[in-house]
């Protein structure tokens, strides 16, 4: 319940705000460093397992809703709007349109090294967006990134050399021409 899961019980470190060895100031909060390191093996389920197996083979697999005909990438076990099970599987080309992107100027612990660009890619034939890294962005904070990489640019998936059945089997998307 409320007990902190310390990295090592009894070894919690008492710290004053931002101290890292700096002498404590009475005005700074007293805290204890606690780690919560749990390893998860998160289930993929049948639908996403099939998609990830496809990535290993450089294939982008999608499925569709028989009721509304939308095509899902990532595939879905059911259509959340129609609330019907999805049916047909199909393979989509590894190309599409970069509809939008942003540049992350700051990172976070465990995240990609900034700056990095994340885009929403609509693969040809898909009704949905796949979020992924894009390259070709000018990381000059003074200029408009769209000058170098306009929205609507045709992009293609660049496959990782080693593929393990993970979304990063696609290394990134790059301009197609």
């Amino acid at each position, binding site marked *: *319940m*409320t*007990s*902190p*899961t310390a990295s090592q019980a009894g070894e919690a470190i008492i*710290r004053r*705000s*931002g101290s890292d060895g700096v002498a404590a100031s009475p005005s*700074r*909060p*007293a*805290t204890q460093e*606690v780690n*919560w390191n749990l390893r*998860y093996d*998160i289930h*993929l389920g049948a639908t*996403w397992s099939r998609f*990830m197996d496809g990535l290993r083979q450089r294939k982008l697999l999608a499925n569709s809703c028989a009721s*509304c005909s*939308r095509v*899902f*990438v*990532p595939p*879905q076990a059911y259509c*959340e*709007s*129609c609330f019907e099970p999805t049916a047909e599987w199909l393979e989509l080309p590894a190309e599409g349109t970069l*509809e*939008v*992107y*942003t*540049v*992350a*100027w*700051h*990172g*976070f*612990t*465990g*995240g*990609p090294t900034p700056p*990095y660009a*994340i885009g*929403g890619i609509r693969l040809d034939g898909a*009704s*949905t*967006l*796949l*979020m*992924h*890294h894009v390259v070709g962005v000018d990381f000059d*904070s003074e200029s408009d*990134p*769209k000058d170098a990489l306009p*929205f609507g640019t045709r992009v293609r998936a660049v496959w990782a050399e080693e593929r393990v059945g*993970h*979304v*990063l089997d696609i290394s990134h998307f790059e301009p197609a021409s």
Partner: protein
Amino acid sequence: MESTSEPHLSVRPILPVHVVGIAATEFVTEHDAMLDELVFDVVYRALREAGLRKQDLGLSVSASMDVLDGRSISSGLTNAASGGYLSDAFRVEGDAGVAIVSAAEAIASGDVEVAVAVGVHNPETTGDAMRRGRFLEQVSNLAFDPHFDRPVGLTANTAYGLHAARVLAVSRMRAEGFAALAASEISRSAGLDRSVRRRGATAQDVLDSVPVAWPLHELMLPAHSAGAVAVVLASPARAGRCVGRDAKLTGLGHSTGGYTWTGEWLADPGAATRRATRAALATSGASARDVALAEVSAPTPHLHQPLVDALGIDANVTVNPSGGMRSNFPGLANGGLRLLEVVERIGELPSGSIALSHSLDTITGGVAEDATVIAVEAA
């Protein structure tokens, strides 16, 4: 991509639920306090304001999030402080707006006479703003699905950046216009007690502030703070025997949005708010024409107009006299703060008019949104 069908809305008018007490902590960068100390402080004072005791509570609903609180089932720590010891209590892992709606629904349904909703937000990290910001972004990334969006580094700020970039591409309004809107909210609230941005800003100041997620700069984003807000609610009969606030909740609305792949959060970011507004107005029996004041939780200036439109309010409505989220954003306690801002101004509204208190869960930015809208009238 928009939903293929508008969800059916099945609601009926409710009996009003009276706000009889509200209390908030000071809003600061970081509280030197345990979570339960903050919760106890505001619940105790809100009950006192209403002239009620812990024993009068039929239900306590708290809002917080384990991953921010650094404890699994952190409500085990805060339940007693919310008055829930040997009573009925539960916690929502989300914004305080959901807790308020849940507590109010328990009263409106006749289940209980008095309930308290409390939101607490004091992320368990310490240090300067940059360190705290990195922690919040890490937690946000953890809230995205682990198979697709987490590995590519999606966070609340990047999700808002994606939306803002799209707006800039399709809107006639330029970056300077959105910066001016942010500057106006910051400047309007700079002198207010609860604002955590205490200096006014110009549009140029906003554009010169630290770039966070293109095209967003620091001063376009919410003014993060830590704190807690408790709202004590009562049935009309019980409120008649209470001292305290003269406001009543007459409409309650809540809705969730779609995940990243739908694209709805980019193309129609007001969808969840629109549905929650329909429910709030339908349960109140009022219409958007009756609204005179709104506290709108727009995390970026690029979301301001889509959310105002989703609330169905026109240019005559006073929006965010508090400065909104650019003045003060106490994370999961935001729903309580927005209601407090409304309740403190409800007496200034023309007779027969209503106010709307709108709040959002921002853990994954505009993705998988949790929107609440509460219609408020003078009691």
